[in-house]
């Protein structure tokens, strides 16, 4: 299992705070996890589309797209925000 947390607009646009899922086959990195989530269709495709700027933390530390994802990890997706 992995735990995924969604923050800010992602949470609002996807209508989900967090979920626990089986680590999908072929998912070993942040990039492949994002591709898997995009594959859910609907809002997921747009929210995590190619233009989206998505910050990612694995187990409370920021990682880049090549960062690895493994069973037991907690992955957080959040957008940078800019309001002042």
């Amino acid at each position, binding site marked *: 299992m992995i735990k995924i*947390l969604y*923050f*800010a*607009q992602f949470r*609002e646009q996807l209508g989900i705070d967090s979920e626990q899922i089986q680590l999908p086959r072929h998912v070993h990195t942040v990039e492949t996890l994002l591709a898997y989530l995009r594959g859910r269709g609907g809002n997921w495709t747009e929210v995590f589309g190619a*233009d*989206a*700027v998505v*910050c990612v*933390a694995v187990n*409370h*530390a*920021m*990682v*880049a797209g090549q960062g690895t994802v493994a069973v037991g990890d907690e992955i*957080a997706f*959040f*957008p*940078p*925000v*800019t*309001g*002042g």
Partner: protein
Amino acid sequence: MVTVSTPLGNAQLVRYARQILLEEVGESGQARLLAAKVLVVGAGGLGVPVASYLGAAGIGMLGLADSDLVDRTNLPRQVIYSELDIGYSKVQRLEARILDNNPEVQIMTHPRLTPENASAVIEAYDWIVDGSDNFQTRYLLNAICARQKKTLISGALSRFTGQLAVFRPGDACYQCLVARLPNRDATQGCVEGGILGPMAGLLGCWQALETLKQILALSSRLQEELLLFDALNNSSHRIRMRKDQACPVCGE
């Protein structure tokens, strides 16, 4: 570490008594605040509480950078402005209100920071507090702070989300966190996304408090961490930032 030895006057000892009482502050900490030069970028939802509380806390020199005029829609979250201020310069009204509370603060007002003026303005300050409302300004401040080796205390809002981070020279920078400039349509500031007034106040005060902790060099100050705050369910998460070796601003 800067050592500050100017003794406090009697009026200062009275005024700042509650701050001095804290062992984390003391007379030497208060003297350090009185010697600090802080630039507050933006005089809006974040900038108003940041500058008000920093001025009241006794920051010696405070810069306010914004070209906006007070608008009616600002009033619910920029509580220091009055209806009579509508149409007048924010930084001038804010300066007047800070001086009402604390006449000994030296205040400088500046227009909105641009690639043309930012470097010269930032030169005069030691600590830069970013309460701006767009990614272009955030990138600009970050690049100049990295070059001039200034600490950047960055706050940002969207609806019920607040983000707070401190970027010190040598650590991960803002562009390590936000590697690509987000598309304008994808982002929601206070104008597009909406905001409740006290949400801006809460994050602005948090940013002011963290600025004081940085100036006081408290061991528990925020360092290479991003704070994500969600006001709907009152939860906060701390995320460790990481320097991007390929970062065009701070990488090798």
